[in-house]
């Protein structure tokens, strides 16, 4: 109905203040750019009694260099800032590219990196208010013989067929980033590869973030800084679209051969999917037509397409092959 419910709005100026508010309001919802949150509220599908707007907390914003050659990116740093930052573009160009391909310019100006990795799934059934498993119900309305599953999963469906919608998530997993979370008095560091969780772990959330947690930011280690990197997003439109499938890769080459590789695929399961079969295949190999053919053989192994989404199998294979192809140049 496009009219939000009534809620208390808190706008703390520090992480400590935010924690205090969260402690007093255990059902509060953290908001920054609001690009995921506001639709939920305007549709009244989710109606938290309180919002904690962390966009004004200075310590959560900005990009700074780390001693190991990596970068710290505050959670409320906007996607435009990530995409345009010189250091990100130099060290982690695939992250810059991923951030720059999210949604549209207007959305990227408001949306934050923290929000992009913490956002909820875009399953239309779930977001339309169907009382599904993820919404606390006892069925999946999208896992039926006639369901419209074009955008849904091919892997690890467990009472839910939704996929991760994030473009930056696969890039951060591939870069072996670490999510830094304020949990009570502790700062908890969670590898990006473990930050995203599937329905088999908890069907009601997409990440390890628990009630009261605040995602402070992301450490992108120096390990892959300056490496050969690749990000590609396959979508219906150039802008304002979620990925049908995306792929992120960091790699190093020496003497014409691939010496190290980290490759992750989004849009095919609830979490970013590490393409470990491809990684193990390509390390030690020389990029080329033969290798691309082999990559296609293994890239989508185990995929179990649903209605309308078997195109994701060749798409996943082709994107992996294109990533490897980029190393030949």
């Amino acid at each position, binding site marked *: 109905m496009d009219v939000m419910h009534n809620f208390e709005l808190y706008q703390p100026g520090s992480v400590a203040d935010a924690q205090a508010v969260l402690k007093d309001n255990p059902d509060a919802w953290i908001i920054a750019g609001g690009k995921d949150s506001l639709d939920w509220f305007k549709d*009244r599908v989710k109606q938290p009694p309180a919002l904690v707007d962390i966009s004004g907390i200075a310590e959560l914003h900005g990009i700074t260099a780390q001693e190991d050659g990596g970068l710290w990116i505050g959670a409320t740093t906007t996607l435009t800032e990530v995409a345009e930052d010189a250091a990100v573009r130099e060290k982690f160009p695939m992250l810059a590219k991923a951030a720059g391909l999210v949604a549209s310019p207007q959305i990227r100006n408001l949306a934050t990196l923290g929000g992009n990795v913490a956002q909820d799934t875009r399953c*239309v059934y779930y977001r339309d208010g169907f009382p599904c498993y993820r919404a606390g119900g006892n069925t999946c309305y999208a896992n039926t013989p006639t369901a419209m599953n074009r955008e849904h999963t091919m892997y690890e469906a467990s009472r839910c067929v939704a996929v991760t919608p994030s473009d930056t998530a696969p890039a951060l997993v591939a870069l072996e980033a670490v999510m830094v979370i304020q949990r009570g008095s502790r700062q908890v560091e969670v590898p990006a590869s473990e930050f995203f969780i599937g329905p088999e772990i908890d069907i009601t959330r997409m990440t390890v973030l628990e009630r009261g947690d605040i995602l402070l930011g992301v450490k992108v280690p120096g390990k892959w800084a300056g490496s050969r990197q690749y990000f590609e997003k396959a979508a219906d*439109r*150039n*802008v304002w679209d979620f990925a049908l499938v995306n792929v992120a890769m960091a790699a190093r080459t020496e003497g014409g051969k691939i010496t190290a590789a980290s490759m992750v695929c989004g849009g095919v399961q609830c979490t970013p999917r590490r393409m470990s079969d491809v990684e193990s295949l390509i390390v030690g190999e020389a990029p080329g037509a033969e290798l691309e053919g082999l990559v296609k053989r293994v890239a989508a192994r185990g995929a179990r397409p649903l209605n309308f*989404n*078997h195109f994701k199998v060749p798409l996943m294979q082709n994107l992996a092959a*294109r990533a490897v192809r980029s190393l030949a140049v």
Partner: protein
Amino acid sequence: MAYKLIGKNFTPPDIEAKVTGAARFAEDFRADGMAHVKIWGSKMPNGRVTRIDTSAAERVPGFLAALVPDDVKQPDGAGQAILSSQPRYFGEPVVAVAAETEQAAADAIAALVVEMELLPFVVDPLESLKPDGPNAFSGGNVVGSGIDLQTVKWSGRDFALAGEGELPRGNAPLEWSFGDVEAGFAAAKVIVEESFVHASNSHHAMEPRSAAAYWEGGKCHVWGSTQSTAFAQPGLANLIGIPLSDLVFVAEYCGGGFGGKAGAYPLMALPALMSKKLGGRPCLLRVSRKEEYDNGYARGGFQGWAKLGFREDGRLIAADVFVVQDLGTTQGFPDFNNVANATSIVFQPESMRFRAVPVMTNTVPKGAQRGPGENQTANMIEPLFDKAAAELGIDRVAIRVINAPGGGGKDAKFGKAQGPVSSAYLRDAIEKGAEQFRWSERVAASRSRDGSRVRGYGVASAFHTAGSNGFDGLVRITPDGILHVHTGVGNLGTYSYASTSRIAAEVLGYDWSRVVLEYGGTARHLPWNLGQFGSNTNFTMTRTNWVAAMDAKAKLQEIAAAVLGGTPEDYELRDERVVATADASKGISFAEAAQKAIEMGGKYSGQQLPEDINPMTIASATAMAGSGLIGVAKDTLPKVGTVPALSASFVEVDVDVETGKVDIRECLTVADCGTVIHPMGLAAQVRSAAVMGFGLAHTERHIYDPAYGRPNARALYLSKPYSILDVPADGLHWAAVDQPDFENPMGMKGIGEPIQGSASAALICAISDALGGHLFNRVPVVTDMIINAAEGMPQSHKPLATNTV
């Protein structure tokens, strides 16, 4: 002929307000004490309301009133209700509430208890045509313009005969033919026979159909969003239940309509009815994006079949076309008729049979959308011409040239009756476009590869009727010498309300800076004009403004003769003066003539009016009587033929066969729109039509889960129209044949609709070309379909299934 204004660029008067944000749309209406209205839409695709309990809603602080279906007039037959007790599509309004604030209204809606009984529903027309298929409406499943509401079921034999993937062709309530179709097929060198699906798609108007209203002094004041200021009024008055004379209507701006706001629609009347219940208190209904998708209409989709027979030289000598149209829950719009009309005019078949079955489904009501039927025809039929060209071994431009009407259109035939057209230069447009696009040279690169990117080229044509007659023109010269052109056509955003008004200024020789356009509401004293839809405005409104200006011109000459002596024929108009032809120093200014008109009264200043003009025009002219020189007339100019807007488009794409990505590199559209009035306006129309057409061809989604009958694309990011960032910034080009139409005094005719269809179909043909001539026979051609085709994999869509893309 050299014109002073025609063919020149200018800045329409509403541009600045739109650019600066000063423009006020219906949703911007505010008034002291204004109440807010919200609607409760059905959660079922087809149901019967068994209980409405407003008690909890009434306890919401700020609640004012509720309207239920029994409070409003119900439509006849399969019409669309304002509020329905038997809603037939998801989101159909059942209850409306008003409250002191929008928040309270929304809270009250959330507190409503509405119980419903689910009825059988259907979201696929072919399912409804099955022997035991459900009807979307209790009274039947088939209805349409000229087709009475009835139940049509095809036999199991009909379906079995068709086989998998072929359209069953059972009994059709509409069937006609001309020529000897069977003889044509017998003589054909190549026959192309295909079944296809064209999806429905939403209108995506940026401005949802919000409305506001209040009552004062016995009159109902309504702010609405409409394409058609004058034409919408009778329907709106009828929905509200008042005489037209009691309606005060404001519709100065329209944030997009695309046919969906062609006339009045039920939601526009809702604030007025709520306001009446509240004793006239101002009420605003703000419609959300999702509610707009639920109630904002959509283009009618098709499941169809065509068999085309070609002579060796590519001439189409026989066409047999059968379409099943998805009407949604109402009678919809007769897109099906336009499939026949478009096929007949664009391709000029020597013989043709046409059959159609318009079927209701429990999906969003279907209305006219830019090129309703004609543009689907382009998308469905043009690729078949490519297939025929390949089989005949002739060029794809050549096969279109040999069939297209051109050279003025004296030999062109239109529709079932094979009647005449007012002009036709489609062949000329194709030839001009081919030359400008360098088709022959560039098409040599067709299917060339750069890595995984494959080059493709497409050419296509489209049509829409482009003009009507019989409406009124009204102009006024006030004693300050200013020309006021009163135009009731509406301000859809094409700016043709302004450009067509320049005809009056041209006839009278006015400097444009001394012309005021009166538009946007009843207070502007509007003449009875057709709406701004159907690509008709250029033709229709230039005629009305021409006849009104000619009436003013005659009166100016008569006044000069009365003042200065001689006969009217002794005088001519020059530099906003009426001067003696023999001695230009002898004359009076238009300002003086206007003052004299007031003194003379009678027909000169609106006290006496022509007998043949519409009551709306009479009321407007009468309201202004005595305020200046009134020029007013009904368009009784000769009109014999159908007025065809025609266009041809050429598209170059790269298709990435690994990702399905389509990169549109260039598009050229050549318009057959008669004399060009406003080049910049035409350019904007051609370019934006291409953007819209590309979405129609490639990305737009209109999805219903058949298990729930609920729409799955109720957001812009889900329904995916093209944006400006999806097209090449400098790659959308335009040209015009610029040959005058024979039945318009200044040669103008419309163009707004076919330029979308030709661009859309050319893109589909270009994608198919890149993929080796692969025929998708399904529109839109979305990413997954391209990947599946490129990979040699089966498509996901069940044959002929609709509302799945």
